[in-house]
């Protein structure tokens, strides 16, 4: 605020001096020039009346000649003072208006307002750098979960979008270069409420700079970064960036997973999708020959995972020299039938359209589907606003970069145990995954389950934490409905993390220890019911023993007296 006031005062110096001078001259003139009163006696106007007359004259209100009619000499002077003071006012007001319009001043006002709204945040928040497709998806998903976010983006249009969007909560946004440390600090990097920083700009270097800045200025803060090339990824990992997402690798990896164990892939999909949406169908990508159109970063990642699964992949690429596949590819865009036929589309089982142009990708899959209707179709979607046409194309799998990154980050931010679980799950076989899937669908039915974490400590589970200090509690015992303990809570414990030791699908007979971290998935609303058990000692006692005891100081005394 200081800066604005000082800037304002400094710029207002000249206009204020002009105003004071104009008033002084006009008032002094009126006082010195002799007039006559109603009876024709000579009379001198006092400072009080002179100031009064000049005040209403200068502001163009004009009440007339008071307290007595003016002499011609006074009128002459009034003409002078009118022009003098009105021009001085116009000058001053003009100055104020220009000052308010000035970009530097506006910017100072906006930054101050932004800084103030960050200072007023009294709950945990995340800083999201970059409000493109991914950033907006992520911020919206966070807002749905009542988690606060602060946005920085260099593009003013995107900040305008943010202001117009109805998030259900206030999301402060600043139009600035997030790789400048001053702006990160302004966005609350050093605040004790800041829980993490997510760098999602479309510029790898900017993301790198954001990661370094945050690691240097606020060491403990988790940093999640998007990186599109391997060397930036390695660079970020070298100074301890907590989580790095390469959307192409992630997708190639998922596709490989779908090929090799469809069950595990489905488990991934279910647990990382938005809760309460309809569950996605299981995918069974066929093994056989695949045609891969486009050998850019995405194509390379997919190729790698296809080859890794022992699947034959034919590359179709328009510019083999630049992408480095000159010796083993079919030259062409893949949008025309001849190229696809040359790649052997008739006997292929699947096609991946992975160029960076959405229209071409759709054209590739449509052409291919005409040549071979049984193909398994995968396409890469580059822009968020093409959602409708990609849906209409009825593809088996759409790689939407922004969605992949947003889902991944959301899982990292909201349920930190989920990545641990998924990592463990990949080491299991498909049959294990299928069993987990059937257990989950038995509990949650047709919609995506909610996933939540529970830490057995004094903050998240005070009642259970106290009980654990006195006697053992089995996991199965707390998974009862607090309304009627004969019914189980419709949720499944997915993971138990004790120290560094993860235990997949812990059984009901596991004895809980304080400090354990548990990952659950289940129907929506179950998490709240469970937290009631964790917080309220009486509810916990009922769930554990079936005993409903009146609890108050008097009752406790009477009970012990018995």
């Amino acid at each position: 605020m200081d800066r604005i006031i000082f800037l304002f005062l400094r710029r207002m110096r000249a206009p204020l001096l002009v105003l004071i001078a104009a008033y002084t001259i006009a008032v002094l003139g009126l006082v010195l020039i002799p007039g006559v009163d109603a009876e024709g006696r000579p009379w001198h106007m006092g400072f009080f009346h002179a100031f009064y007359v000049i005040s209403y004259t200068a502001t163009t209100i004009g009440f007339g000649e008071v307290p007595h009619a003016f002499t011609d000499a006074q009128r002459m002077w009034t003409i002078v003072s009118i022009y003098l003071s009105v021009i001085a006012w116009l000058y001053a007001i003009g100055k104020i208006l220009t000052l308010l319009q000035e970009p530097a001043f506006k910017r100072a006002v906006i930054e101050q307002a932004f800084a103030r709204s960050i200072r007023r945040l009294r709950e945990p928040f995340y800083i999201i750098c970059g409000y493109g497709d991914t950033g907006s998806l992520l911020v919206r998903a966070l807002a749905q979960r009542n988690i606060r976010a602060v946005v920085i983006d260099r593009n003013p249009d995107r900040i305008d979008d943010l202001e117009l969007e109805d998030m259900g909560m206030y999301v402060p946004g600043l139009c600035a270069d997030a790789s400048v440390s001053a702006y990160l600090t302004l966005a609350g990097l050093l605040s004790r409420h800041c829980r993490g920083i997510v760098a999602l700009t479309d510029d790898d270097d900017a993301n790198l700079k954001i990661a370094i800045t945050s690691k240097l200025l606020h060491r403990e803060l988790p940093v999640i970064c998007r990186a599109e090339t391997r060397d930036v990824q390695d660079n970020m990992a070298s100074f301890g960036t907590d989580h790095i997402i390469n959307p192409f690798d992630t997708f190639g990896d998922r596709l490989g997973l779908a090929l090799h164990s469809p069950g595990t892939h489905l488990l991934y999909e279910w647990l990382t999708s938005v809760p309460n949406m309809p569950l996605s169908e299981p995918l069974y990508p066929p093994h056989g020959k695949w045609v891969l159109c486009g050998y850019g970063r995405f194509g390379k990642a997919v190729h790698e995972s296809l080859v890794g699964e022992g699947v034959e992949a034919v590359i179709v690429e328009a510019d083999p020299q630049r992408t480095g596949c000159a010796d083993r590819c079919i030259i062409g865009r893949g949008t025309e039938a001849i190229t696809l036929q040359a790649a052997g589309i008739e006997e292929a089982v699947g096609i991946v359209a992975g160029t960076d142009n959405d229209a071409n990708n759709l054209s590739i899959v449509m052409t291919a589907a005409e040549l071979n209707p049984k193909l398994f179709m995968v396409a890469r979607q580059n822009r968020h606003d093409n959602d409708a046409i990609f849906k209409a194309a009825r593809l088996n799998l759409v790689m939407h970069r922004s969605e992949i990154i947003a889902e991944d980050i959301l899982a990292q931010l909201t349920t930190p145990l989920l990545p641990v679980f998924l990592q463990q799950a990949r080491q299991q076989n498909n049959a294990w995954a299928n069993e987990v899937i059937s257990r989950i669908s038995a509990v949650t039915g047709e919609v995506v389950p909610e996933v939540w974490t529970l830490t057995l400590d004094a903050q998240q589970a005070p009642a259970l934490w106290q009980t654990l200090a006195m006697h053992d509690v089995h996991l199965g015992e707390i998974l009862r409905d607090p309304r009627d303990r004969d019914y189980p809570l419709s949720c499944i414990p997915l993971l138990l993390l004790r120290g560094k030791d993860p235990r997949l699908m812990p059984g009901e007979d596991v004895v809980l220890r304080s400090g354990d971290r548990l990952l659950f998935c289940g129907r929506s609303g179950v998490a709240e019911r469970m937290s009631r058990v964790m917080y309220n000692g009486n509810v916990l006692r009922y769930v554990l023993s079936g005993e409903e005891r009146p609890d108050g100081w008097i009752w406790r005394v009477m009970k012990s007296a018995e």
Partner: protein
Amino acid sequence: MNLEKVVFGFFIILALTLNFGFFIGEFDNPDHHNVYELFAVIVVNLIATVLKFGDRTQMGALLLASSLVADLQLLAAAVVWGYAQHVSGTGLDSMVMGSIVSLAGGAMLANIVSVVLLIIETVNLRR
């Protein structure tokens, strides 16, 4: 020599000298305190205040504060004068004059602080 500094110093010192001129004389005697002098003191003080705007140093802040105090006191004196003469109808009796002059005296103290600060700042300059 810097013309800006000359103008700055001129108005600050003029504010003090005019203030002193108005203040001096028999305390409650209206004949010893000229209304034109009070007008000049107010104008010069306002100009001095505006000249101090926008200085972000500690010294600048203190200078501005002392000027604002002087303005407040002088404007209060002017209001008392106008009220006594035009509104209450008592005219400039010795009681009214006393309060006007004491208000101006307070403003003079603030102006002295201003000048002392200005001198300190100048002495600290080793150029």
